[in-house]
């Protein structure tokens, strides 16, 4: 790790000014559970760190208005255990409580979580030059395509990169039509979470659409009764404390026992948090049974493409999504 300067700031304005003054090699740090880790691996090499974990009010959680609001620096542990989130939006709470460990959830922020980088083993382990990686070294090639690709994506991959988008929380937020609030040099703006992520295409090193100096000041979720009929189902290599092999976020708007509108998103299988629109279309207006749920789930994977070792994710993903649809439906009172 190269020597670096470190400052703590109290307002977003101060942070942005410090960032711009520091120039190219500046980075924001929040919990540091991803950035500092990648610095130790020689993948991230900032010379100036601006700590935004303690911005005034940035850990605010507000469930009073017509949207749930989570400040960018709210801790994963605190959002997961907030009573309104836990009781009325289980998909959000479960996506957080099933991520990482309690130690890490006490450090990591819900804003930083959106911007964490892939766990692709070739990305993380090859910074000494052992493995080419277009995300780490643009234009160097991709060791995962045609390599040990068990963990890699079956949806949204390009010829340059098939790395999985690792976060659980962004998948749940995708299903709930969340919005991301950003503050930059020219003031604030709000974007749907679906617009935060770039597909890898030919430039897998460009992962997010936000400006380098922009700060995630908050995340908001429209309040909906579908929140109660929701679930986040995560399948891992071990029962806890592992990234998803496949995961499904489902929330159902119901009319009696019929689905008015389903909200479906997938994790562990795609290069970006993945909205399962084809599954939503199959479920619209239908009653729920295992057959229908599986039909919807298979529709979500219709365009999936396997590599050498990850074909199992297509079947596992469909069955996991079908289970999640049934679980969400069973929460409907």
């Amino acid at each position, binding site marked *: *790790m190269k*020597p*670096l*300067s*470190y400052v*703590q700031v109290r307002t977003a304005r101060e942070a942005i000014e410090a960032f711009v003054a520091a120039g190219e090699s500046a980075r924001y*740090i929040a*919990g*540091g*559970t991803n950035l*500092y*880790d990648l*610095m*130790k*691996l020689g993948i991230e090499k900032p010379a100036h*760190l601006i*700590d935004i*974990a303690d911005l005034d009010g940035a850990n605010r959680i507000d469930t009073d208005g017509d949207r749930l609001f989570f400040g960018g620096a709210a801790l994963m*542990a605190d959002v997961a255990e907030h009573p309104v989130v836990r009781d009325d939006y289980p998909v959000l709470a479960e996506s957080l409580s099933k991520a*990482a*460990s*309690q*130690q*890490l959830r*006490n*450090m990591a922020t819900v804003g930083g979580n959106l911007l964490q980088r892939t766990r692709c083993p070739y990305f993380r382990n090859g910074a000494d030059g052992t493995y080419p990686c277009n995300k780490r070294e643009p234009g160097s090639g991709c060791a995962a395509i045609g390599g040990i690709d068990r963990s890699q994506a079956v949806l949204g991959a390009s010829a340059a990169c098939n790395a999985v988008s690792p976060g659980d929380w962004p998948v749940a937020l995708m299903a709930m039509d969340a919005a991301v609030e950003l503050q930059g040099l020219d003031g604030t703006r709000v974007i749907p979470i679906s617009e935060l992520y770039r597909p890898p295409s030919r430039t897998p090193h460009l992962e997010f659409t936000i400006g380098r100096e922009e700060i995630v000041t908050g995340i908001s979720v429209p309040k909906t009764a579908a929140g109660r009929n929701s679930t986040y189902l995560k399948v891992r290599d071990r*029962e*806890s*404390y592992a990234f998803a092999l496949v995961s499904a976020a489902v929330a159902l708007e119901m009319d009696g026992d019929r689905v008015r509108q389903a909200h479906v998103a997938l994790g562990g299988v795609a290069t970006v948090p993945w909205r399962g629109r084809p599954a939503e279309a199959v479920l619209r207006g239908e009653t729920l049974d295992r057959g229908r749920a599986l039909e919807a789930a298979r529709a979500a994977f219709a365009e999936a493409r396997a590599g050498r070792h990850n074909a199992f994710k297509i079947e596992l993903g469909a069955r996991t999504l079908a289970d999640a649809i049934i679980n969400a439906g069973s929460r409907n009172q």
Partner: protein
Amino acid sequence: MPDPQDRQPFDLTRRQVLETGTIASLTGAMLPTAGLAQQAGPQPSPENGMTVHLSFRVNGRPTALDIDARASLLDLLRERLGLVGAKKGCDHGQCGACTVHMDNRRVASCLTMAAKADGRDVTTIEGIARANGLHPMQQAFIDHDALQCGYCTPGQIMAAIACVKEGHASTPEQIKEYMSGNICRCGAYVGIVAAIEQAAPQIERS
């Protein structure tokens, strides 16, 4: 023999003070206690990066020093403050051996930049025994043979105390889920869960 003029109170030589890493100004409550002065830990390497000033409390003791801005809290505790209870298992947040409490919450000290501890309260395994003996969680680990080699144990105990205080120790299933951030290579898990069940009623929830 050093010149007696060079001697500090409590027989701490100036050289030792330098070695322990400028433990604040040696005044009042900031006097190093025996624990710190006796340390025979690793020699602190000179801080050759850019430094930041850090002023925090470790196990209740106010501590102030300049640190390399890159340092992890784990390395600061082990290499400069001689508190080697917290262990380095993976250095990447994946094993829990480095677990300590910061402002009463458990964190992985390997992924906590030391600079973030400024103004905070850090508690390590060295700081939990009570005046009249072991902490109930320490005793429970002994009672249930909740360890074999012991490498993961300081992290397990710190995580376990927090697990109880958080209210996440009401069933064995919940204990397993909320202790999953601590890996035990020796597989002492059964004893660990039993120890936490024993100690839980003796520890207040926060």
